[in-house]
């Protein structure tokens, strides 16, 4: 009978133990897990050449060598708090019979510039000029372009965009790169080689630099940064805001950037404000904690009283301005400035010599050019030498005909813009010339086998 009771107790114990197990939640899907990846469209050489001929960009892009497959991927990444979040990206893949379009192709990991448009989609090469330009500059020349749309845009699950959050942006970029490579390995005849070329413009310049830094710091076993070309990025972010919030000048677009940044830093760090009215003047508190990105046209937002009715987006302070006097006065010791310090991309050093360049224009009224020269000087202080190409300075550009073409073309484009040159400087005039310069660097590095 003793044995039988022992059996009873054992059976009960086993049953109860089994019943008590396994109550924790499963780990979320790994970073870069592909939710979906599809071939969204294709562009032919003729279509690409037709587009670049019509826009006048072909002198810089060159004639297309490859058709391009446009792929769209939804992937899993992490938000600034480390929680799972989805993001989307466009992947532009060369195809065709030209030797430049076959085999394993180098990857250009591209970070797009600031946009207020929630539906931003780098796979939409027909309607997105930035995506179309990248297709012509890179994919049609044999580079695979991986262009994340960023957390908080398109079909991302995030409710805000971690704007100018260096670490979070790098994580998103790295997961986008992983997802793209995995997708191509499974679904495309053209695969990614191990050559990784990082670039981006404006906000994307900051993201590109952050991604370069984080890959070499944390992911060196997985990726090698072959070359890198951050363009017109606010690398010295704290100095930029010290200028804007202090003596000026106020950067063009500062109203929009500030709104995005307040949302981003409050979301990630929670130290920008206790009450939104501390930051925004009374009419603009109505924009709430998160106005951007949105698909509502900006003129409508102005008409709704959510933004100052100023087309230069520089109405930051004083009557009719976006920001309260008290927020500006408290800025030097504020959490907002601490966050800008945290996301300033100085104090790191790329690992591979002769593979990095910065680019911009000295008269940039939106992202001041000191951002590029400060980063260049910061690297130089530790013995890492890299050019900071200034489209206003022939001497700073590469020697020879290529440099002449870039310099002359830029000056010609500025002249053609006339009175609109300042307004178009950052967003329209500088990008194609810097992209052409950076592409030249990439071609040089690849040819040299660096």
């Amino acid at each position, binding site marked *: 009978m003793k044995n039988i009771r022992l059996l009873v107790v054992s059976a009960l114990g086993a*049953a109860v133990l089994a*019943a008590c197990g396994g109550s924790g939640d*499963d780990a*979320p899907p790994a970073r870069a897990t592909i939710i979906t990846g599809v071939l969204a469209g294709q562009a032919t050489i003729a279509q690409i050449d037709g587009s670049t001929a019509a826009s006048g960009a072909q002198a810089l892009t060159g004639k297309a060598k490859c058709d391009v497959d446009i792929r769209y991927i939804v992937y899993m990444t992490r938000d600034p708090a480390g929680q799972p979040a989805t993001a989307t990206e466009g992947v532009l893949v060369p195809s065709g019979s030209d030797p430049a379009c076959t085999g394993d192709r180098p990857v250009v990991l591209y970070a797009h510039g600031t946009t207020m448009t929630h539906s931003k989609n780098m796979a939409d090469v027909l309607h997105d000029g930035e995506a179309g330009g990248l297709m012509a500059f890179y994919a049609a020349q044999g580079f695979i372009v991986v262009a994340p749309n960023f957390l908080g845009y398109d079909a991302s699950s995030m409710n805000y965009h971690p704007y100018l959050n260096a670490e979070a942006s790098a994580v998103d970029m790295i997961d986008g790169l992983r997802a793209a490579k995995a997708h191509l390995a499974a679904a495309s005849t053209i695969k990614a080689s191990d050559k990784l070329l990082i670039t981006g413009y404006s906000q994307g310049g900051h993201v590109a630099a952050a991604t370069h830094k984080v890959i070499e710091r944390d992911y060196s076993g997985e990726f090698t940064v072959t070359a890198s070309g951050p363009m017109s990025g606010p690398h010295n972010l704290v100095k930029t805001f010290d200028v804007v919030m202090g003596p000026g000048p106020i950067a063009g677009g500062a109203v929009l950037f500030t709104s995005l940044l307040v949302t981003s830093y409050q979301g990630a760090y929670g130290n920008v404000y206790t009450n939104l009215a501390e930051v925004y003047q009374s009419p603009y508190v109505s924009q709430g904690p*998160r106005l951007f990105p949105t698909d509502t046209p900006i003129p409508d937002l102005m008409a709704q009283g959510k933004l100052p009715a100023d087309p230069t987006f520089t109405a930051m302070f004083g009557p009719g301005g976006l920001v309260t006097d008290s927020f500006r006065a408290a800025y030097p010791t504020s959490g907002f400035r601490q966050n800008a310090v945290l996301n300033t991309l100085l104090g790191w050093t790329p690992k591979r010599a002769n593979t990095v360049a910065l680019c911009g224009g000295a008269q940039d009224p939106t992202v001041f050019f000191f951002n590029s020269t400060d980063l260049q000087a910061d690297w130089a202080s530790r013995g890492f030498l890299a050019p900071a190409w200034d489209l206003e300075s022939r001497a700073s550009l590469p020697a020879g005909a290529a440099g002449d073409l870039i310099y002359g073309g830029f000056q010609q484009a500025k002249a053609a813009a006339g009175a609109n040159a300042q307004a178009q400087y950052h967003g329209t005039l500088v990008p194609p010339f810097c992209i052409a310069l950076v592409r030249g660097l990439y071609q040089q590095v690849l040819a040299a086998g660096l």
Partner: protein
Amino acid sequence: MRNYTIVFATALAAFSGAVSAQEQPKHTFYFGGVYAQVNSKAGELVGGPPVPPPGAQIDVGDGQTIGFGYVYRFQPQWSFEAALGIPPKHKGYGEGFIAPFGQISAVKQVAPTVFFNYHFGDLANGRVQPFVGVGLNYTRFIDGYSTPSGNAASGGPTTIKLTDSWGLAAHVGATFPIDKQWSIVGAIAYADVQSDLTATTTTWSGEIVRTTHIEFRPVVYTLAVGYSF
């Protein structure tokens, strides 16, 4: 999100058979482990932005818990049984387009079940005493939540609610007497558990409400120890 009530009912039923009909003690309490195998069937989540084919669905995972109950043997071959248990947790998994998100939700179920049982005669010299029972199951879903992965799948922080379920239950099992008081009972039960799920997601542009109907179709396995007097 599911059949947990059924699991408890099964456990209870199992115990109802725990006492030998020949000895006929009137009261039995039982306690043991319960495993609810959920074979859920749910329609596509309806509402919110369009989801690419094959759509978004939820699959309910199995659950396990500790079950207990009481059996009243009011006739030598008939008994009434009330089964309960510690509310087990069931995980919800994405299916279709949202399958890569893995576990997207979890919920506990409180599922009291009552049975009327018929006890057959002894088999194997009284060492096996089979029984069957039919009854009624009530399932209330509590503590439902969307996981961080579920929030990502839904597009933002999400709350989950499931309606209560009433349904028929049935079980079959056998009691294995050890002595006059103690026995081991094994049982398998099935219950009709259905619920309407509502998931409400807060996004930057407003709330998204998605709904679906879930048939849990649980098969509940119970292994318990009973004490009769």
